[in-house]
């Protein structure tokens, strides 16, 4: 079967340096419209990797270019230079090893923001992680991967610029943001800290990309939470309305095709992500940058082949109320036999994806850059689940496979959100355009997590910080404990509310063609 990106061309390749727009009809040349495809003119590029080709038109397909080599995830640029911002984090480190093992030249920055924030909470990564220098050494020893690391704050544009000029990244994965809704809701200082780091960090980064590596693709981590969960049940499209979407009002009708879909953030952290979305979207429009905005579901798990290869290569796993995502937190509770905590009715529906699957998605995105000026959005989820059902599944696995029985407890919901809501998510691009098929079921990853977390050393580390699991950060700004509403036996609670719906099927061909015209190229 043909690889998903076989037919991509130099238009998509970061090695293509756009040099001129030649109009043979007028025998004229121009620097305007340099990255805009038009049948009547000729775009001239130079290849940064194949200078011997001279000046040519950007028409070579990945399949035909020797610089793009076949991997299990499609064609990947040989020794592709990928810079990861936030390389010390849960995802950053995992992706660094994955990309390194695929032959990419990985570089990255981190200022250990996350390690410090977790420490601030009085917690730690329950999976012990090595220092960065030990990590780098182990990556070399165990996987023969060289990673170029710098301790740089994303807000330190001077040093980041210097590093970018040195590395000239061909793709930039932006994980360098504070990823916690509760952290942004602690108080004014925390809200400002999150928004300043995330919004200003990303805005500064966009300027640096424009000035230093304008052909590089920015793969920016957004969150499915940007969309909120509309009570009307309106589907959560992939960032942009499909071509056949219409708005009807006052007996009049308008096409919504190609417009950004509404965002309805649910914390100051989510607001920062929405602001990022607009900044990235505009930068693509103004400066012909290219970006994927990855609306990632809640991530969970501990396993990839690379992080499992050596104890020193493991990635962090947080369970505190600020940084512990729902599955990770519940599994840790199951290890200790603590009742698994759900907020409010527990009928909230979340899009989820396992760490291993998420990393594969990222590789596929890196391997398939958009065209200049193209801002594209993918919804990166492999399944939708109600929180109460997640708790049921986790306690079932932990009881049956590990003999650790737990109950489930409902807490007062400290967040301002609907406990019960419809949820329909469209995730068609990754499966249909990027060839992604989820490999990891919820049960499988929970099992792998429990195998790791029930190791005595790690269980002890969970016990030490178990007091940080219970939520104390109220969206109302109040400072108080959350009280238990109910404790129940697994299977005892009747499932109510709405059924989640995940749309992954191939969009109709006609619609896709329209989308191709209307959506990806922002002119």
């Amino acid at each position, binding site marked *: 079967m043909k690889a998903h990106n076989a037919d991509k061309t130099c238009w998509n390749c970061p090695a293509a340096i756009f040099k001129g727009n030649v109009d043979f009809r007028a025998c004229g040349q121009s620097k305007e419209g340099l990255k805009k495809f038009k049948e009547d003119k000729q775009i001239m590029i130079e290849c940064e990797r194949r200078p011997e*080709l001279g000046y040519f038109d950007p028409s070579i397909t990945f399949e035909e270019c020797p610089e793009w080599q076949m991997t299990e995830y499609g064609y990947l640029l040989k020794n592709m230079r990928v810079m990861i911002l936030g390389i010390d984090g849960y995802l950053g480190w995992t992706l660094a090893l994955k990309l390194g093992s695929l032959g990419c030249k990985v570089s990255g920055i981190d200022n250990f923001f996350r390690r410090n924030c977790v420490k601030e909470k009085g917690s730690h990564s329950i999976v012990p992680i090595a220092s960065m220098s030990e990590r780098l050494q182990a990556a070399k020893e165990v996987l023969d991967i060289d990673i170029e690391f710098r301790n740089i704050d994303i807000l330190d544009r001077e040093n980041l610029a210097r590093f970018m000029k040195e590395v000239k990244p061909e793709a930039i994965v932006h994980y360098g943001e504070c990823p916690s809704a509760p952290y942004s809701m602690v108080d004014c200082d925390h809200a400002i800290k999150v928004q300043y780091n995330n919004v200003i960090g990303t805005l500064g980064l966009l300027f640096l990309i424009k000035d230093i590596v304008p052909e590089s693709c920015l793969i920016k981590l957004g969150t499915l939470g940007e969309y909120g969960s509309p009570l009307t049940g309106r589907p959560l499209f992939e960032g942009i309305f499909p071509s056949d979407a219409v708005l009807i009002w006052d007996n009049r009708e308008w096409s919504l095709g190609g417009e950004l879909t509404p965002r309805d953030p649910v914390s100051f952290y989510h607001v920062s992500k929405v602001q990022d979305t607009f900044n990235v979207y505009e930068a693509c429009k103004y400066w012909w940058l290219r970006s994927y905005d990855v609306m990632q579901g809640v991530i969970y798990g501990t396993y990839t082949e690379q992080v499992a290869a050596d104890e020193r290569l493991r990635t962090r796993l947080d369970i505190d109320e600020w940084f512990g995502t729902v599955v990770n937190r519940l599994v840790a509770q199951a290890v200790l036999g603590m009742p698994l905590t759900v907020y409010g009715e527990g009928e909230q529906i979340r899009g989820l994806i396992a760490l291993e699957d998420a990393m594969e998605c990222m590789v596929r995105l890196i391997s398939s850059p958009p065209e200049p000026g193209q801002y594209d959005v993918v919804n990166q989820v492999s399944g939708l689940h109600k929180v109460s059902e997640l708790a049921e599944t986790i306690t079932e696995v932990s009881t049956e496979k590990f003999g650790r029985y737990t109950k489930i407890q409902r807490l007062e919901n400290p967040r301002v959100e609907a406990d019960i809501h419809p949820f329909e998510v469209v995730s068609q691009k990754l499966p249909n355009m990027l060839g992604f098929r989820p490999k990891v079921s919820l049960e499988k990853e929970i099992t792998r997590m429990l195998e790791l977390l029930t190791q005595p050393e790690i269980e002890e580390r969970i016990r030490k910080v178990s007091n940080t699991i219970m939520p104390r950060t109220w969206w109302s700004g109040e400072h108080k404990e959350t009280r238990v509403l109910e404790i129940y036996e697994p299977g005892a609670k009747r499932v109510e509310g709405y059924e989640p719906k995940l749309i992954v099927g191939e969009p109709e061909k006609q619609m896709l063609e329209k989308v191709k015209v209307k959506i990806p190229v922002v002119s």
Partner: protein
Amino acid sequence: MSRHERIVIVGIDGVPCGLMKNLSDEGVMPNFRELRKDGVFTKMLSSIPEVSSVSWSSIITGKNPGEHGVYGFTDIIKGTYTLSFHHSSNLKAPTFWQKNESKKCVVVNVPSTYPAQKINGVLISGFVSPDLEKAVYPPSYLEELKSLNYKIDIDSEKGHKSRRLLFEELFETLKLRRKVSESLWEQIAWDIFMIVLTGTDRLGHFLWDAYENKNHESHTEFLEFFRHVDEFVGSIDSRLEENDSLIILSDHGMESIETNMNVNVCLANEGYLVLGDNPKKGYNDIKNGTKAFALEPGRIYLNKEGKYPRGCVKGRDEDRLIEDLVDLFSRLERNGKKVMKKVYRKEEIYQGSHLERAPDLVLLSNSGFNLKAGLHKQQLFEEGSFTGKHTQDDAFLYVRNRENLSIVPEEPSVEDVITILDKQIEGE
């Protein structure tokens, strides 16, 4: 006969002999009118195809494309279908400045000399030159050009946006060209000075109708631009000394467009060209079963087995296919008018050691038909936004040699210019 001290060549791109005659007769170009009294002014045949890259390459080398290896602004990278753009290293015959290394030369804005190669003197490349940094030799002149905001060419996109911007670009570029040439004229003790004005060609493409139609709203500005060109010629002439020689010439002519004709559409309609549906793949979208394809403006290449990735034309079938294509294009008509004046087989027009890159057929259109090679077009004939197209048989040549006018052949072509130049260098 006395030896000439210096030689100046002024190129005026895309200007037909008739225009130079008319505008000098009518007083728009008084300096050129004066010059005509004192030299040979004649029509000149352009190259085939009649495009600047080929024509100027013949002018500066004295060779036909079979010898200098340049058949257009574009070519296909060997063993692929990827379209490449001309690079000065593709020129396989020595230029006059390479042949006369002891002469100090200033060469400004000659098309297809990018990137600038080493020269005894100064070279500033002309169209197509994506980066000024690589268009200047020696690089020490770069700063001066940058400080002047030197422009290699008009920004053609601006021309599409507004007529006002087009003229602003044209006048500004001409002014800069003059400024740079005057500066180099003074700074360097040159023996041969060559400068090409390309704005005339751009103006012709955009607004040939403004020349032909006296009531056109841009007619006055069109003439005004040529007045400036004439002033430039006059200023050069005024600085020449008694023994200096002067050559003024164009690379091809210009005429009005009746219609554009898409050569590849013709090939596709007749089943010779099979394309996919992705315009961004350019010529890489050529599919199995393709027998021939065209590059700008009317160069036909057989999709030969072993030469191209999906080549299918076997050696034994080539002659037959050529016959068929000659027949196809020779018969092509629109409204009862033949589209092609002549369909040339490569061996009819090219000789030399670089024939392997030559197109198998070259189309020369009849008056009014503008040949285009857009790949994924739908219409065989279509209107466009331009009003002027190149012509092959009415470029012009002016030579002032006060002592011997017979050095100009009766029917000169672009390849003869170097012989005239050589004779002047030798002081015939």
